[in-house]
């Protein structure tokens, strides 16, 4: 099984450790992983700002780098959702469709494709899960609090396989953190307030770490935590699932 590793631009530039953890975890689980060099961005920052018509450059690059692979896996629910919903390239529609159908966020790839039921990972800490909206409501990584339906959570299932890890319960299980792409700068006041409120929920319930499936949300929360000089840290789920004994 050939898996293409999709490392979104801001992870590549600012959080290489998340890319390394993702790669290492997939390799440990027996995947033949390739990282197509020269990849850049899914195009979402432009598209969500109303400039989807500018994204054909990013779309073409994406198809060129990821066509012909069995699966494409990325450690970001939001970027994966964007590709799933919006990747189209004139003249390469078949390749684009294949990618849209075969791209997975890391956690769902682990639970749904690799069907992981145990992990050799240890992380003896209290951890709060931040359910990023695009992963949860867009990709369906977990049951949503608005719907009358049976509960499930793919990230939670994976974290429960980690030795010593204790999940904290939150007052609001799936409220948005306020990152929202360019929303975080164009609507700075509300964005930060939402982030502060999310953090308070984790802190009040004793979390030492906040984890999630989207580094963008975590980057926003981390920025606020560091300004608050808090001891609470953020980690991408790959970093926890890859933490060795």
């Amino acid at each position, binding site marked *: 099984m050939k898996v293409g590793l999709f490392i979104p631009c801001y992870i590549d530039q*600012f959080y290489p450790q998340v890319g390394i953890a993702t790669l290492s975890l997939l390799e440990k689980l027996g995947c033949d992983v390739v*990282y197509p060099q020269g990849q850049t961005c899914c195009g979402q920052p432009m598209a*969500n*700002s109303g400039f989807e018509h500018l994204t054909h450059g*990013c779309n073409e690059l994406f198809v060129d780098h990821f066509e012909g692979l069995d699966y494409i896996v990325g450690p970001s629910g939001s970027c994966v959702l964007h590709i799933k919903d919006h990747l189209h390239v004139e003249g390469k529609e078949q390749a684009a469709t294949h990618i849209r159908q075969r791209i997975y966020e890391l956690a769902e790839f682990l639970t749904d494709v690799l069907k992981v039921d145990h992990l050799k990972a240890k992380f003896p800490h209290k951890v709060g899960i931040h359910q990023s909206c695009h992963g949860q409501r867009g990709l369906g990584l977990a049951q949503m609090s608005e719907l009358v339906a049976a509960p499930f959570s793919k990230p939670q299932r994976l974290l429960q396989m980690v030795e010593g890890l204790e999940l904290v319960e939150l007052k609001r299980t799936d409220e948005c953190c306020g990152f929202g792409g360019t929303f975080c700068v164009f609507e*700075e006041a*509300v964005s930060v307030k939402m982030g502060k409120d999310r953090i308070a929920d984790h802190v009040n319930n004793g979390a030492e770490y906040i984890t999630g499936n989207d580094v963008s949300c975590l980057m926003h929360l981390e920025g606020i935590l560091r300004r608050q000089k808090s001891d609470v840290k953020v980690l991408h789920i790959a970093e926890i699932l890859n933490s060795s004994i």
Partner: protein
Amino acid sequence: MEHQHKEHSLLAEEFNANEPRVNWHDETLWWVRQKRDKMAWTIPEWEDLREAASRIKHNVLGNLHDYLLEFEKNAQANGAVVHWAADAAEHNKIVLQLLQEQGVKRMVKSKSMLTEECHLNPYLAEHGIEVIDTDLGERIVQLAKEPPSHIVLPCIHKKKEEIGELFHEHLGTPAGNADPKFLTAAARQHLRAEFIQSRVAITGVNFAVAETGEMVVCTNEGNADMGAHLADVHIACMGIEKIIPQRKHLGVFLRLLARSATGQPITTYSSHFRAPKKGQQLHIVLVDNGRSRQLGREDFRNSLKCIRCGACMNTCPVYRRSGGHSYHNAIAGPIGAILAPNLDMKEYADLPFASTLCGSCSNVCPVKIDIHQQLYKWRQVITREGYTKKTKAAGMHAMNIVLSKPGLYKTAGGIGRWVMRTFPAVVNNGLNPWFRQREMPEPPKESFADWYKKNRKQ
């Protein structure tokens, strides 16, 4: 670009100047959202009910022309007079004419978001007619000379102490009394006098049944009934999308409406108005005001399914922390943000961007409008039509150039991180909105791509 109003982000920033108040506003509306959840969970078939409602409305929107004519025919047979208004101005003119025929200078109106949308009150005031809003929340904001901040809970932004002060000033209640029961009793006395003197009553309409020509008006206070029954003339104002095909469909909508809105099983009053009493007149004003245009926009057509429950506002994390007035539109929140650009794209160009696209709104919507997807689509339309700031457009073009060229992206990334490490003040300053209340991420020496090249030779 000149606008009549400040943009959402600025108004939201002003709202956030008082953080304890934001916390209170957020908690109050979150409490309503939780009541809604509890009620939804009492109905095992809740999701099927939403689907049914959505499909009934789908049918209505696909056959609106026929249903409207059927409704008109049956309403006329019941003895009602039906008026058609192409836009807000025509609606206001029709209402004014009816009032002038009756020679009234003061009259009562129960809750109607349509009349808010048409700015009926100020229009009538210009013509020397005073409207008394009889919904308690509406009356409170009217006394405060403010627009409603929420379609179901118009004065949800006001604390009871502020309402006590307003009542002291306008209704003569004792200063410092903020007891909700006492204030409600005072409002009741005050409104009773208005009901009794009012020869004309305006009401909104929640559902208009094509099959029978009747209208259903839902209130918790009975104020629509009180007004309509005591007056000689009842004027019911409705948007043309309020039609439902048959009476039996109320069984779906009435179960959803109050549960979604306030977490009640049903509104206290769900009153059917079918025919005028002997000697009474019943006028129904059917208003388009952009709805036909929206119906023609395939991507946004579904927004007309809305039954005005307000659930999307209560769940919206942005609405809860920016307040209804920050949307500078009669209808605030996520649904307002997809309806408003249809009315005036330039004036409301900011609203589809006042969202993180988290999707919670679409999940609570009782008629399953894809609200967050429509927000995304409006962003594209607004940008294409040229209603985006030039600075933002320039930034997006620059970003696109960098991200479309792998070599440039790699170089720009490396230089950018080096600058951040070496001269942090270049980004860590007040001009960077990120940095105002957040630290920038720490720039590593190596990107993932750099690391991969070194560590995984292919």
